[in-house]
């Protein structure tokens, strides 16, 4: 009963906020930015191939929220609606990246060969052996996983990020992506499997054997 009352209160509060947003209220948008800019930025930064673009994409998301808030009718929650826009922008940005920015290669960036194996350009140069300290720094489990995450197909990656990092439930992810619940579960299974495979390949490609996650779990 208490949960229901709380849910009704939150819905009423959100309805008030939405009404304010639809008038273009500066104060309401300041509140929205304070509430959502960090999690939206985080999701975008985890999803993009180049996290340096995350701030620009986040700005584009909030501009679209501002422009289209009039068409928000409360069919989904405000959070779901904002994330839906963010996911769409991420998808657009990744397509753009594939067409343009992929040309700008760096030695540290993850590349993919014809067989689909990931490698760094820096690894192809002479004297690429890392010191134990560098290996420890670069081999941080989180960095490895984050890097591997960027290599898996977009449809799987979005679901993995929303579920594992952002902590959304299946239903809300389905609403955000506008897909069925079964599709979310299926993509999550495929995404986790793809991530596992990416980390295995990463471990095999590391000459210094610093892929800690894979090592730890293979013992």
């Amino acid at each position, binding site marked *: 009963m208490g949960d229901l009352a709380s849910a009704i209160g939150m819905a009423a509060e959100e309805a008030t906020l939405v009404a304010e947003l*639809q008038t*273009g209220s*500066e104060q309401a*948008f*300041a509140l929205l*930015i*304070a509430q959502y*800019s*960090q*999690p939206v*930025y*985080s999701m975008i*930064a*985890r999803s993009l191939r180049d*996290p340096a673009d*995350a*701030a620009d994409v*986040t*700005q584009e998301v*909030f*501009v679209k929220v*501002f*422009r289209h*808030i*009039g068409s928000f009718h409360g069919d989904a929650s405000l959070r779901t609606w904002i994330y839906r826009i963010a996911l769409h922008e991420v998808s657009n940005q990744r397509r753009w990246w594939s067409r343009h920015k992929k040309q700008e290669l760096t030695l540290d960036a993850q590349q993919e060969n014809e067989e689909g194996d990931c490698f760094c350009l820096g690894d192809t140069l002479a004297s690429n052996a890392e010191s134990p300290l560098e290996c420890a720094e670069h081999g941080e*489990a*989180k960095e490895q*996983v*984050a890097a591997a*995450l960027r290599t898996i197909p977009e449809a799987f990656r979005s679901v*993995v990020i929303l*579920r*594992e*990092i952002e*902590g959304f439930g*299946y239903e809300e992810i389905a609403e955000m992506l506008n897909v069925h619940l079964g599709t979310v*579960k299926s993509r*999550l*299974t495929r995404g*986790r*499997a793809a*991530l*596992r495979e990416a*980390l295995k390949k990463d471990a095999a490609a590391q000459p210094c054997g610093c892929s800690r*996650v*894979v090592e*730890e*779990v*293979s*013992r």
Partner: protein
Amino acid sequence: MSWSEKNSAVLQKCLEVREEFSPYLDGDMSGTAMQSMAAHLGGCKDCAVEFAAWREIQSTLGSMGPAKAPAGLQARLRAALAEERERGTHLAWDRRLAAMWHATLAPFAIHAATGTVAALLLIGGAGATIAWFGAPSEVQANDEPLGAMTAPHYLYSEVPPQPIEFGREAPVLIEAKVDDQGRVYDYTILSGPTDKSVQRAVEANLLSSVFQPATIFGLPVAGHVVMTYTGVSVKG
């Protein structure tokens, strides 16, 4: 069942179990299925290692936490939205057009309307002025005709006129100057006899004569009048 068949069945079971790793991680399966999964993992080292890898990845992802937004992101977003608000991009197209009208064309329209009204007033005023002052006005019955001037006009003599007699019969033409009171104050004999007796008779007649004075715009002024004395008798 042969060894290879048994091995194949185990591998098939492992594949089926691994397909369920994902829902097992989320606890998204029935209690019976979870028990079955736990039993298989307890007896299959390969699947247990693989599941441990999946769980480690999940744990690592969960511990990554949010990617920290750069400092000033919120200010940047507010500035971007302020710019959008200035452009009215959140408004419906009709309200946006109205806003654009008010922001851009309306001030010009006010100026244009003001200019048009001013021009109309100016042209209308000029027309009215021309019509008012340019067109000849109708003469009113009680108006004095513009530039009307009248000459002195003889009214009567205060005494009976004295006959003018001199030696021969001829008209005497006199120019008399009449003041604004209608009295003669000077005269000149233009033609005719100029005898003393004639002059005295003329003066006696003129001094007793009363004239309607000359007028300009209805006001009495000094003027002159030409008079002829005829029927002058001649003595002898």
